[in-house]
């Protein structure tokens, strides 16, 4: 089970909020780029977040660019998972591919600063202090496998190619 503090954001947080284009030149250095994580949504986020915390948002989190640097910097900051009402497609894919779990669930009752618990296997998010419990659909098998392997690269190396539902599909 994961436990940490919630950093709450609104709807339509774009990849430009997460990794602004003006730091394009830092893309080769994830650590430095991560110092600016979510800067255009909350300037203080990167300095306040700690290992195991959660990003919690509204609709369409991660819309915009295909830049995989966006989930990477969030992971680099120590964020354990992102919870949102919904995610943009490419962001969702990228997060799973780099081994960062992202959860679609009702986040309306979670407030900034709440201590929350997430149980990935059970599919539950809880805010114990407020007796709030929200369910989410656990990941499909292939994504579970990707996450368990540690992301796409590790998955492909371990299985010598893609493996979906037990059938290996090597290069």
């Amino acid at each position, binding site marked *: 089970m994961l436990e940490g503090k919630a950093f709450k954001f609104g709807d*339509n947080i774009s990849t430009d909020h997460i990794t602004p284009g003006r730091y*394009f030149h830092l*893309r080769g250095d994830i650590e430095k780029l991560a110092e600016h994580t979510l800067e255009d949504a909350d300037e203080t986020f990167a300095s306040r977040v700690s290992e195991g915390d959660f990003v919690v948002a509204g609709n369409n989190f991660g819309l915009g660019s*295909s830049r995989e640097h966006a989930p990477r910097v969030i992971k680099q900051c120590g964020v354990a998972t992102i919870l949102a009402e919904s995610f*943009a497609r490419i962001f969702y894919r990228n997060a799973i591919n780099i081994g960062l779990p992202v959860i679609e669930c009702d986040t309306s009752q979670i407030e900034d600063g709440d201590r929350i618990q997430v149980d990935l296997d059970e599919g539950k998010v809880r805010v114990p202090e407020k007796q709030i419990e929200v369910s989410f659909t656990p990941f499909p098998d292939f994504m579970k496998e990707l996450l368990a392997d540690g992301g796409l690269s590790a998955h492909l190396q371990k299985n010598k190619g893609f493996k979906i539902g037990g059938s290996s599909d090597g290069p």
Partner: protein
Amino acid sequence: MGKTLSEKIISSHCGKEVTPGELVIANIDGALVQDGTGPLSVEELRKANMVMAAVPDRTVLFLDHASPSPRKELSNAHIILRNFARETGVILSEIGDGVCHQRIVEDYARPGDLIVGADSHTVTAGALGAFATGMGSSDVGFAMALGKVWLKIPEAFRVELTGSLSEAVYSKDVILHLIGSITADGATYNALEFTGPGATALSMSDRMTISNMAVEAGAKVGLFESDDSTREYLEEMSRGQDWKRMAPDPDASYQRTIELDLGTVEPTVSCPHTVDNTSPASELGEVEIDQAVVGTCTNGRIEDLRVAASLLRRRKVSDQVRLLVVPASRRVYLEALREGLLETFVESNGTVLPPGCGPCVGVHQGVLGDGETCISTQNRNFHGRMGNPKGSIYLGSPATVAASALTGRITDPREV
């Protein structure tokens, strides 16, 4: 049950009949990365000892976002891609060759292809009837190496276009209008398939603008059928042999049908800071601008430059406005040069930039100052997009942008 165009194309790339929701491993026909996403793909492949390319003659690395490079870190990113191209035999598109999506439609994409790109606007090639979609650096990196990718089969929306465009209204207005009505996440995880007599009547350039922005509604792909216009376009690009007809089955099942009469669309702009925050240009009131941009992968084609030039000819842009014009590719640049369009832009006091992304993503060339406002033909107006979170971006057609450059405020092109 008949198949949508998306299902047909993916089925033919994974050796079985697919249905929406299913996860498959599909073979790709081509892949692209650019200078902002490609270095990470290369790094991942090097770490995994997979420095190789499955389809080198259809894998292209583009130096277009920071081009020419404004700083040493980005020059070094370019070196990473040049070296990778040399080692694996994939194609390198150099500085000055143009924006990835424009070059892909000109030289590579074929109807029925499955193309993945580490850039969200890879969807542009949907205009040719190719299932082209954006992904991240890891996805596309490993797809380049293995020739395969994991895909979830999308549900599709059928967008039935009827009628024809009114005067001074362009396909940019159509797609802005559509995104305004279905919202920026209205088609998340879905395919948009454009059809109907209105779609058939649109030029290829018009279709590319619409496909390019499908992702701004969250869509995975924005597909047009491949028809006679597609064939003529490919012939013009000296690729007539790449043409084949592509269409969904007549009894295909769609999750939703959206009908749009093109004749009802007006010159439309997206207001800061989301693409779906749209308004008819005529109802905007007084919005003064500091910068106007014509170009990018959305509207940097020769047809777009012709429209802008026709408004600017023998006129000067407002003293308050910097007009930047960015041809999308070397081909477009040359055509514009030969037709005298570049002369028109320069004479009107505009500045012509080299082919590439230009100011679109805030890396260089036209970064906004604090409190400044820009109107651009690009596809995104997100907070901070043009390099400064204290700037505001409006989106419009090449005609709306040119008209606004003349008056110094956002202007319906029918006014000038």
